[in-house]
């Protein structure tokens, strides 16, 4: 991986970039930082921020044209802009320590002449002197200030100039008018700042505003002579001191390129920001301290936090999008134990729901970045098998034992192929059987039980995905390249992305448009919970609502759509705590019962005791499913769907593959049953462990007649404690697993 392969995902991110006010300020005053300090009354620190940007803080507080106010985020709310200049004035009055910093740098040899002791010339001279250049300022008048000398507050302006030059060594030559640049032949550089209408020595037409350079090799120009306002001329002085460094060393002027351009991006408003009227100063001289602090607090410190506000995962890990991209790259280069992978947990804790992109003003998809990282980790064999083992084994089952496909019973050409997805029949077989009956009544419909490959996708296993898609493509060709009918939004989303040649339609759209459907009334009031994978799937979203409305339900829209229920990205093993937080938050998004159209969403909400129903229970008038299907029940359900449909379609009897341990009867408390469900341990693994222990005697026993045994799978090792009951059944007392492998000495 190259650094840019990861960086490209977040390159447009504006989090932490200058706020619009700072971008508008020629001096790039960090207004967020300045007002944050002012708000707390930290006037000395605020003064340092102000002086670093403005060079002459008191002058800025008197004369700054306040370009920042035109871009103030407050204006988006309809408020007046924050009165930065008045806060600056208070800061200058209130900061106790204003002593300029003395820079302990070695003296430089470069000699620079500045023509004009107005504000432009003074700003350039002071910045150069602070860099320890030998600076001489020439002015035809008898003192500094230039066009500011008649200003009514010149006393304050003069005091600021004196203060800022107090620790800098500059040679001021007054009453010396430079008539010809030839008079300055001994200087390495010359800066012309002779003011509006001043002498330009014939060079103004050749002036380059970016480099301040002129057609004369070492002669530069700035200030009112070039039409700049107060803030811009100080900014030019700062720029000239930077250009001097490159010019003195190399003889060439180079532009400083460290400014960040935020372009047209406008920081989005925080939805809950209250409006606040501008504080008017109670004194003629400006704000009191209390007023200045209050006005500073009006600054919204505009920054983009949209993705963070939307995502529990981003809040938990507290990394900015650009830092995440950097770590995606760094992790691809890490070589333990010399260096660590620092992003692993976060990579596998993302629901990959796309919600960050929806909320981002510049469309950054952090999920896509983390999906890219998952795929890279898989390719480079630095993935953690245990985090996705459960779902990959489920996918093996869905694409293997539980999978089958068949043409319509009539033998006629297929109009549709019903692809219910791996979870629909597993959670509720009637959803598949009855939906298929509906489709068969409507038109010639083939059937394909399989998996879209989401578990492989979220594990980052592209090869397994490719193989699965290849098989799906082959079945599609065999079934007359008919249109797929999806009940699951994840299937439809992955097909759209990876099998774009296959036409498809949501089951709910066919149902909503059919007279054969008369939805049963389950709720008077309800909210449709759209799964994350249905984002952009208007057909699915609207047809589910149409069915719900046909049932007589009044729908309340949830405050947000397409939020992930928690199941997306299969994060549950990687970060169980985060998973629980997300599922709780989604269950409490709306007070009305939820109508869902994703079996995983339903499972999540039933686990949270949220009153919820699958749209197919409504559409097909089925009993409202209120109890979750357990792992072993889901397997049995999937097999039953296959058995029933194969029997119906081909008249054949499907005989599932059997294992010697299948006949084992397990007995356990409901608490333990819930616990092993939580740990994602299947009855199949417990039965096999017990069967092997009983067959070989490779087990432990304690004084209470409790046996213990283990079963090593490819990724996990399962343990169980059990008792043999008189009936021959096995009472399970414990079941758990670990990822670490122990090595049994022989």
């Amino acid at each position, binding site marked *: 991986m190259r650094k840019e392969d990861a960086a490209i995902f977040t390159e447009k991110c504006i989090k932490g970039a200058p706020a619009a006010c700072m971008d508008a300020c020629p001096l790039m005053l960090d207004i967020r930082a300045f007002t944050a300090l002012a708000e707390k009354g930290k006037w000395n620190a605020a003064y340092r921020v102000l002086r670093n940007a403005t060079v002459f803080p008191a002058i800025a507080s008197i004369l700054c044209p306040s370009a920042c106010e035109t871009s103030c985020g407050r204006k988006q709310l309809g408020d007046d802009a924050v009165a930065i200049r008045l806060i600056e004035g208070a800061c200058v009055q209130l900061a106790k320590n204003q002593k300029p910093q003395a820079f302990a740098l070695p003296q430089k040899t470069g000699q620079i002449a500045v023509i004009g002791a107005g504000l432009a010339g003074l700003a350039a001279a002071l910045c150069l002197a602070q860099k320890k250049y030998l600076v001489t300022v020439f002015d035809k008048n008898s003192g500094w200030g230039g066009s500011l000398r008649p200003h009514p507050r010149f006393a304050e302006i003069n005091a600021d100039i004196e203060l800022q030059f107090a620790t800098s060594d500059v040679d001021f030559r007054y009453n010396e008018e430079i008539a010809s640049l030839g008079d300055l032949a001994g200087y390495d550089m010359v800066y012309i700042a002779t003011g509006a209408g001043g002498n330009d020595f014939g060079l103004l037409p050749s002036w380059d505003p970016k480099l301040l350079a002129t057609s004369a090799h070492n002669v530069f120009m700035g200030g009112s002579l070039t039409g700049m306002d107060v803030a811009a001329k100080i900014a030019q002085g700062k720029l000239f001191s930077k250009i001097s460094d490159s010019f003195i060393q190399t003889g060439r002027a180079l532009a400083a390129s460290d400014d960040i351009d935020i372009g047209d991006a406008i920081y989005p408003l925080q939805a809950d920001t209250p409006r606040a009227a501008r504080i008017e100063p109670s004194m003629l001289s400006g704000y009191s301290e209390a007023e200045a602090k209050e006005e500073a607090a009006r600054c919204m410190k505009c920054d983009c936090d949209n993705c963070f506000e939307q995502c529990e995962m981003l809040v938990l890990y507290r990394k900015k999008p650009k830092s995440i991209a950097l770590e995606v790259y760094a992790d691809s280069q890490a070589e333990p134990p010399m260096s660590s992978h620092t992003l692993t947990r976060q990579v596998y804790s993302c629901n990959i729901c796309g919600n960050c992109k929806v909320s981002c003003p510049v469309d950054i998809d952090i999920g896509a970045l983390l999906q890219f990282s998952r795929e890279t980790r898989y390719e480079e064999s630095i993935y953690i098998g245990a985090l996705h083992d459960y779902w990959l084994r489920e996918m093996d089952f869905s694409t293997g034992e539980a999978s089958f496909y068949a043409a319509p019973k009539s033998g006629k050409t297929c109009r549709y192929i019903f692809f219910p997805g791996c979870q629909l029949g597993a959670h509720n077989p009637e959803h598949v059987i009855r939906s298929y009956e509906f489709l068969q009544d409507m038109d010639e419909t083939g059937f394909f039980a399989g998996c879209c490959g989401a578990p492989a996708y979220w594990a980052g296993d592209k090869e397994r995905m490719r193989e699965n898609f290849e098989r799906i493509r082959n079945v599609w060709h065999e079934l007359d390249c008919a249109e797929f009918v999806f009940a699951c939004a994840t299937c439809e989303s992955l097909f759209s992305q990876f099998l774009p040649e296959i036409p498809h339609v949501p089951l709910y759209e066919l149902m909503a448009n059919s007279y054969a459907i008369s939805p049963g009334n389950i709720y008077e009031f309800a909210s449709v919970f759209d799964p994350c994978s249905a984002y952009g799937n208007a057909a699915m979203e609207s047809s589910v609502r149409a069915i719900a409305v046909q049932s007589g339900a009044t729908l309340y829209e949830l405050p947000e759509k397409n939020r992930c229920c928690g199941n997306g990205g299969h994060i549950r093993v990687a970060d169980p705590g985060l998973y629980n937080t997300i599922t709780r938050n989604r269950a409490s998004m709306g007070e009305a019962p939820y109508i869902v159209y994703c079996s995983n969403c339903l499972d999540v909400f039933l686990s949270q005791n949220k009153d919820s129903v699958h749209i197919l229970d409504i559409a097909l008038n089925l009993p409202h499913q209120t109890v979750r299907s357990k792992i072993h029940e889901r397997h049995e359900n999937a097999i039953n769907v296959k058995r029933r449909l194969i029997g119906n379609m081909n008249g054949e009897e499907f005989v599932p593959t059997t294992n010697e341990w299948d006949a084992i009867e397990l007995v356990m408390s409901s608490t333990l049953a819930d616990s092993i469900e939580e740990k994602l341990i299947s009855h199949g693994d417990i039965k096999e462990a017990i069967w092997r222990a009983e067959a070989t005697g490779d087990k432990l026993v*304690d004084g209470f007649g409790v046996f213990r045994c283990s079963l090593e799978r490819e990724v996990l090792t399962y343990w169980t404690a059990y008792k043999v009951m008189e009936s021959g059944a096995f009472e399970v007392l414990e079941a758990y697993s670990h990822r*670490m492998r*122990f090595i*049994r000495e022989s």
Partner: protein
Amino acid sequence: MSEQKCFRCDKLLVDKKTAFLYLGRNFTHEVPCCPKCNKVYIPMSLAEGRIADVERELEDK
């Protein structure tokens, strides 16, 4: 929970240094083993306690 015995060897388990392997790293830890056939016992408290902690630490490296 009374003491565990290896069912086949009929021997009480004794604590013994055992090698563990995870994500390419090796460790040793004392766990109950059969003194004769070296059958290992990982109690639930260890699997879901210290072992789970170390697994997580290694995954985050």
